[in-house]
């Protein structure tokens, strides 16, 4: 095996995604520009123009067509990629079902952007979480390194279980922020991620298949079960791929929930994506001041890591769930999922939902401290003041 010497570069989250696409030897990219995703596909176009990659780039007239073309490419056996954000992802919604239902291992980057109106280009997780039930797996990146690593792992996981993966990063906070990323030399990426070996392809004319054909009530049900089972089976694959990635490149992703200081914490902060970087910084500060706090960063939202969540819930007295998203008429989406997953397990930590950072409002170390003080009071008194708190609300 070639010795691993990383190539360190200062790149934006979007460029990290583009480099990962190149290093994954993606064969087809079909995409339509939308802020803040555009610099991903611009960078890929630049790689193609420079002759650094032989990716087939398909410019299309909408995100719906972008996903349709990506589906077509993937059905021929190609490794295919696209990227979008917010309204663009919403426009893809119909085709997302076609991708997962046809069991095509597409990888897409969604740059979390608030849904309009009111018009906004800033960070908000509701766009991706609203695609929860489309049958796609979802990986949330905390930083630019995880965007790069996430895309590489996503292809391996997707192609093992034949389910598409959405790699999610934050608008501007990652997409347009420059940060140090360790990239992997091409020959070592090739060892980790060999060419795709599709089970069936549209272009295997000796073994013709049809994709997306009619399934009557006699069969449709089993198709759904198989997709459901693929998600459950994917958990093992995700852990194995994450472990292998760690062994090869030094960054371990074998846990679907990254945990910090959980074993001796009174309560933990739980959340998705970039806001957890700020939480980690705050947790170190709070611990130095005597707070018994930890964190649980949910890397994979689909499949949902119920088992790992239960392990955490059995250890702590409280969980502060930070949602940069909202399901209207209910509560924060991660909060809702986490509570649901724990019902019937016997684990009963006090859980409180903090709605934070919608539409890119800054979520700071000071905010984490305020939440910690509130959680401490709740746990000491045993009284939950309210279940869902709109934390930044101007009063």
């Amino acid at each position, binding site marked *: 095996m070639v010795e691993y010497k990383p190539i*360190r570069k*200062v790149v934006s989250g979007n460029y990290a995604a583009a480099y990962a696409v190149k290093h994954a030897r993606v064969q087809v990219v079909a995409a339509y520009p939308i802020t803040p995703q555009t610099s991903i596909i611009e960078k890929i176009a630049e790689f193609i123009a420079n002759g650094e990659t032989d990716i087939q780039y398909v410019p299309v007239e909408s995100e719906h067509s972008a996903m349709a073309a990506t589906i077509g490419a993937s059905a021929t056996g190609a490794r295919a990629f696209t990227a979008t954000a917010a309204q663009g992802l919403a426009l893809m919604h119909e085709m997302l079902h076609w991708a997962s239902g046809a069991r095509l291992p597409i990888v897409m980057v969604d740059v979390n952007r608030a849904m309009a109106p009111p018009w906004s280009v*800033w*960070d908000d997780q509701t766009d991706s979480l609203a695609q929860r039930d489309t049958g796609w797996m979802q990986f949330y990146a905390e*930083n630019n390194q995880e965007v790069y690593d996430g895309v590489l792992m996503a292809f391996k996981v997707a192609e093992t279980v034949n389910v598409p993966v959405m790699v999610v990063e*934050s*608008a*501007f*906070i*990652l997409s*347009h*922020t*420059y*940060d*140090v990323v360790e990239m992997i030399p091409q020959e070592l990426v090739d060892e980790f991620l060999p060419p795709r070996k599709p089970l069936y392809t549209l272009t295997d004319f000796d073994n013709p298949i049809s994709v997306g054909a009619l399934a009557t009530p006699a069969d449709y049900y089993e198709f759904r079960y198989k997709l459901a089972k693929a998600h459950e089976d994917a958990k093992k694959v995700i852990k194995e791929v994450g472990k292998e990635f760690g062994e090869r490149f030094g960054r371990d992703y074998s846990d679907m929930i990254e945990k910090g200081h959980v074993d001796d914490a009174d309560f933990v902060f739980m959340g998705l994506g*970039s*806001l957890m*970087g*700020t939480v*980690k*910084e705050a947790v170190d500060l709070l611990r130095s001041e005597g707070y018994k706090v930890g964190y649980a960063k949910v890397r994979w939202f689909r499949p949902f890591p119920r088992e790992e969540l239960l392990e955490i819930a059995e250890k702590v007295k409280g969980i502060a769930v930070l949602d940069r998203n909202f399901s209207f008429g209910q509560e924060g989406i991660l909060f809702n999922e986490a509570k649901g997953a724990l019902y019937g397990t016997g684990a009963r930590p006090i859980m409180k939902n903090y709605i934070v950072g919608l539409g*890119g409002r*800054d*979520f*700071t*170390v000071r905010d984490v401290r305020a939440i910690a003080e509130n959680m401490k009071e709740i746990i000491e008194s045993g009284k939950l003041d309210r279940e869902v708190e709109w934390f930044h609300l101007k009063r």
Partner: protein
Amino acid sequence: MIEVRFHGRGGQGAVTAANILASSAFKEGKYVQAFPFFGVERRGAPVTAFTRIDDKPIRIKTQIYEPDIVVVLDPSLLETVDVTAGLKDGGTVIVNTEKSKDEVLKELKKKPAKLALVDATTIALEVLGLPITNTAILGAVAKATGIVGLDYVKEAIKETFSGALGEKNAKAAEEAYNKTVVYEL
């Protein structure tokens, strides 16, 4: 961790300056982070950009509220923007201006511990033929703060702008380095 806030106007290259500063520090083996204020940019409107530099990976993902160093690319901003907002005690302010120390101090709401002045606009006009001050001002940052060496700044500039353009911009940074006057207050 050192936190730097750049104030410029849309089109002056404050965001590029923040990125080049980060690349320079990265070349010296530091961990870095550079990003624009996540606002709506228009040519001529006030723009903010940020750089963080540290010896360890940077996890925090918020804007910078209490900078160690403030860099002002456009002299007219002193009248309209509180550029010293949140400046740490002991902090440094670097201003592109033709004004004197006393004139600039009158316009700052908070007195910094160190003030560095350079007429980067004139240098940019002479060397580049354009009033774009983002590369020249980085020479002043190197001189006034020592957080990055001039050689690394020039190298990062040449990587950002290729060929003759890179050489010219590196020269602008060097001229500014030589002409920056630093006042300990």
